[in-house]
Structure formats: structure tokens, C-alpha cells
């Protein structure tokens, strides 16, 4: 869809329909032929997709967020049933003794449901 650009709402709907019908799953490290760039997923709900754990070079240095940030992103900001205790109703004080995750991560204890 590079040279043929949908302009009005009807054209955009046609393009979206085609994309839904013909679009394919792209592995995260695979450079898309169409767009020539790596596809980075947004959000954490696809964390189990293969490729999330490593960056485009196959390492971890280029990941969009270090693990300790993932912890707080899931705990504070995410409504999805995540792999950490939830801040909203069950474990509001889980990280109260962890002011700086890089230093205080040992204070974040195991939670037993």
C-alpha cells in the first residue's frame, strides 16, 4: 500500500479489509519486505510471542525496556492478568519497600495467592 494511498473513509475501509484478509503474521526479528523495517510489538500482552525476549540482533541490550521496568509496567499500569501481583485490588503494597528497583529488588517478595 505504498503507491496507492487511501484518502477518504471508504477507501480506508477497503484497505483495512484487504489488510485483514491478506495480512500475515510477521516474526518479530524478520524484516518485512513491504516496509523494510523490523516490527516491534507494542504493549505486553503478546509477551509470549517468540522473539520478544531478544532484540533485533538476537541479544537483550536493545530491548525497549529493562526487566525491572517491565515489573512496574505490569504491576502498576496494566489491567491484563499479568505474571506479577496486581496493584489494583489484591496486593497494593507489594512494592512499597522497593523505591529503586535496581537497588531494592530483593524486597519484592513472593506472593502466595
Amino acid at each position, binding site marked *: *500500500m*505504498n*503507491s*496507492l*494511498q*487511501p*484518502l*477518504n*473513509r*471508504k*477507501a480506508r*475501509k*477497503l*484497505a483495512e479489509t*484487504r489488510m485483514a484478509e491478506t495480512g500475515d503474521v510477521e516474526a518479530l526479528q524478520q524484516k518485512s*519486505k*513491504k516496509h523494510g523495517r523490523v516490527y516491534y510489538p507494542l504493549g505486553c500482552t503478546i509477551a509470549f510471542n517468540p522473539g520478544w525476549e531478544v532484540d533485533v540482533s538476537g541479544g537483550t541490550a536493545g530491548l525497549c525496556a529493562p526487566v525491572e521496568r517491565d515489573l512496574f509496567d505490569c504491576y502498576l499500569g496494566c489491567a491484563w492478568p499479568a505474571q506479577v501481583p496486581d496493584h489494583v485490588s489484591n496486593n497494593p503494597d507489594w512494592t512499597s519497600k522497593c523505591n529503586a528497583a535496581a537497588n531494592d529488588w530483593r524486597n519484592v517478595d513472593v506472593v502466595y495467592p
Partner: protein
Amino acid sequence: MTAIEAASMAYHPAEHHRFEAAGKRFLYLVPSGAVFGLSGLSQEIFDLLENCPLSREELTGTLLGRGYELDDVETTLDEMEEFDVVSSGRPKKTFPSLPEQTFPIQRIVLNTTNQCNLACGYCYEYSDDKIAQTKDKPKYMSDAVAQAAIDTLVSESGGRSQLHVTFFGGETLLNFGLMRSSVEYATHKAGEAGKTVDFSLTTNATLLTEEIADFLAEHRIGVTVSIDGDKELHDRMRVFHSGKGSYDVIAPKIKMLLARHRTNSIGARVTLSNGVREVRRIYDHLTQEFGFQGVGFSPATANPDRLYHINGTKMDQVLDEFAELAWEYRDYAIKGGRHYFTNVSDTIKEVHLGISKAYTCGAGLGLLGVGTTGDIAACHRFVDSPVAQMGNVMNGGVDHETRREFLENHHIGARPDCHTCWVRPVCAGGCYHESYINHGETAASNLNQCDRIRGWIDLCLRIYGEISIENPKFLERFDDN
């Protein structure tokens, strides 16, 4: 494969209208109403096929020779075929399907009276071209008829949750009492059915009072005021029965209305006629002197023999002034400002949404007009006339058989004159009432207007293209309503 078969499989451009804006090329596709921008590979494919139909192999071979990759050519060609930018095989004509038998009614127009305190020369209800036959009919609609009409609206509205009632005349405010009671009744009845209802009013403004203005504001009633410009222009046609102009009476009342009623839109509706054609002058006066935030223009419906009919040359001059205002709208839109020329904004909205109409308008489809006798017509313009009638709200309600016949006869598929016209997704043949006045037949296409309509839509497409490049955010306002 025979030569004929091979030729029939060749690709060619599908039905479209081509336009340019801000140095870029666009296609308006027919009948979908989709607008696509062309560049690079898609533009090359389109240009090749415009010159000569080509098979997929011929097309691919030519483009590979120009340095394109096979994968890109195939993907782009597939897209263009799927969106009906190009097609192979015989050219096909597709039309929207006929609506289901029980297509829900959403709006009724109550002609609350067939009387008017003005005697405008061009009025389609009272002039030489009038088709309404009001002799021996009640002059004013009764509460019983209005309530039966509202009951019909609610019972025929199917799954629609938002209903509309429009109050119309004659001069509507001659029967303000009915309007007041109908608003209360309709609100109650719609509420009982789990629906909401809103209201609008068309008036000549001569009878407006502060009490009426407050009522309109309280019930958020949209108002359309018929006014033709400054005193000199307005008083040429919009006169009392004595011949005296009405401008001096309405001007202070309109200012009072605009000051007191701020809960819904108040628009000006200008009827252009032979002596009243100064579009720019009228627009400036209505927006600057009164502060109207919506001004729409429409030429008077008139048989060409009438003195107030605008002839071809003069109509072209009118359209030149339309174009000047339309480009001004573009300038405002690009800067993110507001311009109040609703002829442009209405058209741009339809282009933006990609409307593809099966019918010119909602008459007989989602809208019905009701007269003082309770007779139901396709719209308010046919109320009390011998044509386009479809039942009576006091006696059996909507005549579905007649309505069905009306919808079959006026469907775009039944208007062969329109079948080769690129503008049919937005025009669909033109106003049935105009057709009847000019050609004596409601389902006749308004062929005398075709070139002008195509010119107008082309202009609006170019303006749309420019806005979409320079300030696409402006167009978001047309997305949801």
C-alpha cells in the same frame, strides 16, 4: 484462447473520475465512492492501462523492464484490482441493492399549515409551479393529525433509536401551538418506545418572538431561516401579500433569535432566483451582519418559462461565485478555521465518508411528509399534491405497497440516464420534485443540471484533496456524524 477472449481478460481502468490537487493525482472510484491517491508504481500501472488494455503478463513485463520488482508489481496490481481501480474482463455495472420492504422511517416532516403570511414569488407551494392542491383541505394541522403522524413515525422506525421531527409550512409559526404540543407528545412517545427524538424548524422569521425563541432553545430545536440576503436583495422576492418586503420585519427578530437560542444550530437558507444571484454579497451579509454559522444556497425550483428562473448563462455566473466561496472555504480549512458555506461542507462530508447513494435523498425511504389532512407524501414538497402519495396517518398509516413501488421506480438502478455518469454515487439523479416541475415525471433524471453538478463535485473533490494533504486533521470532524 481466442483473440477476443484474450482481449476480454486484459486489464483496463475501472469506472472512475480523475482529479488533481496540490500537484498530486487522485481517483474518485465509481460506484464505491472511495478516493485513492496515485503515485509511483500505481500511477504507472494506471497510465499504461489508460493508454491501452494489457494482460497481466504484458503489464508485468513492461514494469520489470522499468526496474520494478516482480513482487511489488503483483502486490500493487492485486490491490488495484481488489479496490476496483482497474479491472479485467467486461466492464461491470453494479448498483446498490433495493432496500428491504420494512426500511425504517427516521424522520417525518409535518406541514403544520398550508397557509403563509408571505407571498414569495418563487415559492413552490404557491407560485405558478405549485403542485399542492389545498382547496377544501384544513388550513392548519390538528393535534390529532400531528399525534397520529408521530405515532406512525415511532411505529415505523424499526430499530432506529434516534428519531427526528421537522416542522414545516406554509409558514410554520402560524401554527406554533401545534408545534409546542407536538414536541411534548413526540418526546413522551419516543421515550415510551426507548428512543430519543429531536426537532427542527423551517421559518420565514416574521412571527418569531422572545417566547418562541426561548421555547426553541429549551427544546434544542434546530432552526433554518429563509432569508435571501440584504434588504435590497431579500425584498425582491420575499414579500408580504401587500407586496411590501419582509426584511425590516425579520432582521431584528433574527438577531434576537441568534442571541437567545444557542443550544442548536441556526442556519440561513438562501433561495437564488433571476433577480437574486449575488452569492458573495449575500454570504458576507448573512455571516457578518447576523452572524449565521451556516449559509446554504439553492436555486429556486422553477420551470424554465418562469421569470424568476435563472437561465444557463446566469447560472454559470452563480457557479463561478460558488467556486470563489468554495476556494475560500479551502483556505479557511487549511488554516484550521471555520467557514460557513454549507454547500461545500455538505458535499465534502459526503466525499469524505465515501457515500454511494441508491437514492437521491431520503424521500419515501427514511423520511415522509405529512399534510394537514394526514395524507402521507414522499416528502414535504409533495404534501397535498396528486403525486408521490403513500397513505394517511389517520387511516391505515403508510401504504407500504405504494411506498415499495415508489422506491423501486426511483432507485438508481431504474434511472438508466445516470448509469454512465461518474457523479452518480453522490447525485443519484437529483430531486424528484425538481424533476416533476421540469419534466413532469418524478423519476426522470435532472439532465439539464448534469454538467453543473459534475463541475461542482469535481471542484469539491479538488478542494477535498487539497485539504487532505495540507490539513488532514480538519477532515476528522466529518468522521462520526
